């Protein structure tokens, strides 16, 4: 690398200087421009193209994708499943160990009471229809999973493969989908590339189900570094409405080796999954972030016997009283049990029970942390992620249909508000994905029956191919890793994304816009791994802009959204969700949608609601 600078040939120099004004200027100053050079390992011009036809295209191989593919197939559609990673081994699914099943034989609460309880904890932010749907369908999905052997292993690829192989559903793994394709005002397919073979892939489909999960800023300490809101941003780019960007998942990590998410979760990733029953909490908020902010960066998490942790900081995010009791209903605990990613503990289990406020990154007692650990934790391990099921495509009805005909979403890719702007029912994330995946699959199959196959125009295919391969063709540019790191340093600090204030969010937004306008267009990639990173980075930047704009718009504090300058609930103005969409002129627009109403395809920014 170093030698190349010295031996930089004249021709290369000229080519480089012509590559971009910015780089030319730097080169003109006689600076070392080695860092910017793209040294492609593959020739973008020799990359092959492939077109695949199907009725229903399922994007994503997690819990939602599995059920979407299986149910669409069972409803008679020709299905194709595409995953950025491996079936059952990418996204958040492999790490989720608790799955909620509402069994009316065993539960004391009726479904109505359950929905009411979730709504109470969620302060009205949940979509009751989706909360109810979760309870109604969860047991059936869990029973199917049981049949496939899901509960017999800590690894899900085998059990997920079973129904897919039995049905001969074709599957493309390690394919990154980058574009949704819309023609005649409906979805007609998607495009992406393989990271193994030098291939651009076009999928012509009558309908597409996004099971692409949520995302973050490749934060450290939470296994979501492969999730970059790809689905949300692709859908946004073709005009879909998306929602839920102001909410936060407030997971912390250990102070020591914060990036080690496996170690942070103790041995949880090694556990077999199990079911959870009704346990409505008020979790994944930003209580700890507030505590750390007010006490100067110190978030001390007590352990039994290490002195009880007192929340000496007053104020902060509001938590409904009945959900802050000492037992059961969820104090500010942020350990593994949150979000259902830990099977419910039983008395006599090998793991000592955790107490409220014991918080912390989940540590494995005994083996996990260094001696005396249980103290320092740092925030932001899931930075960029909203609450499960609260962000993603806006549904227009209870069948996971988006604002674009033929486009569906399920699981964390659908802004169904099943749990609300705070995580409520333990284990509902995983079962919610199963439930919604199944419904989306059936609906998409039904829709596809009445739709004629569409041939995507050649000009569109060419334009998309250009766009996909652009980073490979750059003579020079910014590395995706650097842009991501820069984005992380803008967004992840506690005083930007968690303890929100108008002036700082505006400042961050200015930075993000800079990345969007002057860095993203210059992302470079020298191989397919970096090409994936480049597209992921692009999506993260858009997602950051969405988060900031939505957070600026919601001038109140509610659930996991906390504004230091607007610390109170504002029920008069904010019994509403925020939808984000791309206007005709390409700008990002936001609108309010009253709680428990359905979105319309037209923008309803003018809708008044004071009821």
């Amino acid at each position, binding site marked *: 690398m170093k030698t190349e600078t010295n031996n930089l040939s004249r021709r290369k120099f000229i080519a480089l200087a012509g590559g971009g004004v910015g780089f030319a200027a730097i080169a003109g100053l006689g600076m070392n421009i080695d860092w910017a050079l793209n040294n492609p390992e593959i020739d973008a011009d020799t990359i092959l193209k492939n077109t695949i036809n199907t009725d229903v295209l399922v994007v994503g191989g997690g819990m939602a994708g599995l059920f979407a593919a299986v149910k669409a197939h069972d409803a008679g559609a020709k299905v194709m499943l595409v995953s950025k990673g491996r079936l059952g081994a990418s996204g958040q699914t492999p790490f989720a160990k608790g799955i909620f099943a509402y069994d009316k034989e065993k539960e004391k609460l009726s479904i109505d009471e359950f929905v009411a309880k979730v709504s109470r904890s969620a302060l009205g932010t949940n979509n009751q229809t989706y909360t109810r749907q979760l309870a109604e369908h969860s047991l059936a999905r869990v029973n199917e999973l049981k049949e496939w052997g899901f509960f017999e*292993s800590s*690894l899900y690829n085998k059990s997920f493969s079973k129904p897919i192989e039995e049905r001969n559903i074709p599957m493309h793994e390690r394919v990154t989908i980058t574009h949704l394709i819309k023609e005649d005002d409906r979805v007609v397919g998607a495009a992406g590339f393989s990271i193994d073979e030098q291939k651009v892939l076009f999928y012509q489909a009558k309908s597409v189900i996004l099971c692409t999960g949520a995302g973050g800023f490749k934060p450290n300490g939470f296994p979501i570094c492969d999730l970059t809101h790809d689905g949300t941003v692709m859908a946004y780019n073709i005009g879909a409405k998306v929602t839920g960007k102001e909410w936060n998942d407030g997971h912390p990590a250990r102070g020591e080796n914060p990036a080690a998410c496996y170690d942070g979760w103790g041995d949880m990733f090694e556990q077999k999954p199990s079911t959870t029953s009704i346990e409505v909490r008020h979790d994944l908020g930003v209580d700890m972030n507030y505590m750390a902010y007010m006490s100067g960066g110190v978030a001390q998490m007590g352990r039994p016997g290490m002195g009880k942790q007192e929340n000496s900081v007053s104020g902060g995010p509001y938590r409904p009283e009945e959900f802050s009791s000492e037992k059961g209903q969820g104090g500010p605990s942020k350990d593994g049990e949150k979000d259902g990613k830990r099977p419910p503990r039983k008395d006599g289990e090998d793991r000592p029970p955790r107490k409220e406020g014991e918080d912390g990154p989940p540590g494995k007692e005994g083996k996990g942390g260094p001696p005396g650990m249980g103290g320092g934790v740092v925030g932001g391990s899931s930075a960029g992620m909203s609450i499960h099921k609260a962000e993603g495509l806006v549904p227009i009805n209870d069948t996971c249909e988006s604002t674009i005909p033929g486009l569906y979403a399920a699981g964390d890719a659908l802004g169904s508000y099943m749990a609300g702007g705070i995580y409520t029912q333990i284990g509902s994330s995983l079962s919610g994905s199963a439930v919604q995946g199944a419904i989306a699959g059936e609906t998409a199959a039904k829709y596809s029956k009445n739709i004629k196959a569409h041939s995507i125009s050649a000009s569109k295919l060419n334009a998309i191919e250009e766009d996909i391969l652009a980073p490979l063709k750059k003579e020079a540019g910014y590395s995706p890793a650097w842009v991501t790191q820069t984005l992380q340093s803008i967004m992840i600090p506690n005083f930007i994304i968690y303890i929100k204030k108008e002036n700082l969010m505006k400042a961050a937004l200015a930075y993000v816009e800079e990345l969007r306008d002057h860095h993203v267009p210059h992302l470079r990639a020298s191989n397919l791994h970096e090409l994936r990173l480049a597209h992921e980075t692009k999506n993260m930047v858009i997602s950051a802009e969405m988060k900031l704009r939505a957070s600026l718009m919601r001038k109140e504090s509610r659930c996991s959204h906390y504004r230091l300058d607007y610390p109170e609930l504002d029920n008069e103005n904010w019994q509403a969700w925020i939808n984000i969409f791309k206007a005709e002129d390409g700008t990002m627009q936001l609108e309010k949608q009253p709680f428990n109403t359905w979105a319309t395809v037209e923008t309803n920014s003018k809708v008044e609601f004071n009821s």
Partner: protein
Amino acid sequence: MKTQSYILRFSVLIITFIGMPLFLYFSGNFQKRTTLMETISIVTILGFSLLLSQFFTSRLNYKLMKKIRMVNVVAIHRFIGYLFISILIFHPFFIIIPKFFDNGVTPSDAFLRLITTFSSTGIILGLIAYASMLILMITAFFRFKLHLHYKTWRNLHGYLTLFFVIAATWHVVDMGRHSNMSFSIYYILMVAIGMFYLIRTNLFKTAKK
């Protein structure tokens, strides 16, 4: 004098085929696993080095043979032979032992994956070595039931060994968990010397016997 001499020779054998691999094992910068797996690793490594020592506890080691009675040489050779085979016969199963202690891939799935990864040279060589080891064991066990002429037997056993050792060593050097540079050099050196003895004996000294 005579006693001392063969004690010395045995010490050399022990140092070369037990001391040396142990030294390489402990001096190498290997990632330590559980005590159980480390023990199994050591046993397997010694099993393999003992196999290599077989070249030198047979008729090939002319000098040793002259010092002690042939009956004893055969006894030692047979003992070590059955010992290393009984270790190495379990080698493929040893590898998947950790799968009994976690909730992930089942031991049977892991084993199946292990022995069916035909895209890997090392696995193919391992399978070949394993099969020829079984043949070696069976023919040795039923040596007298085969009613072979001694020379035919010796050639069969020798060349089968040669085939086995090449496949096994290649397999070990190619994919051994502990096959770093020093181990590889050690193995290849031992095999080279052994092969030299074997070929010399079988090709040039036949007339003498």
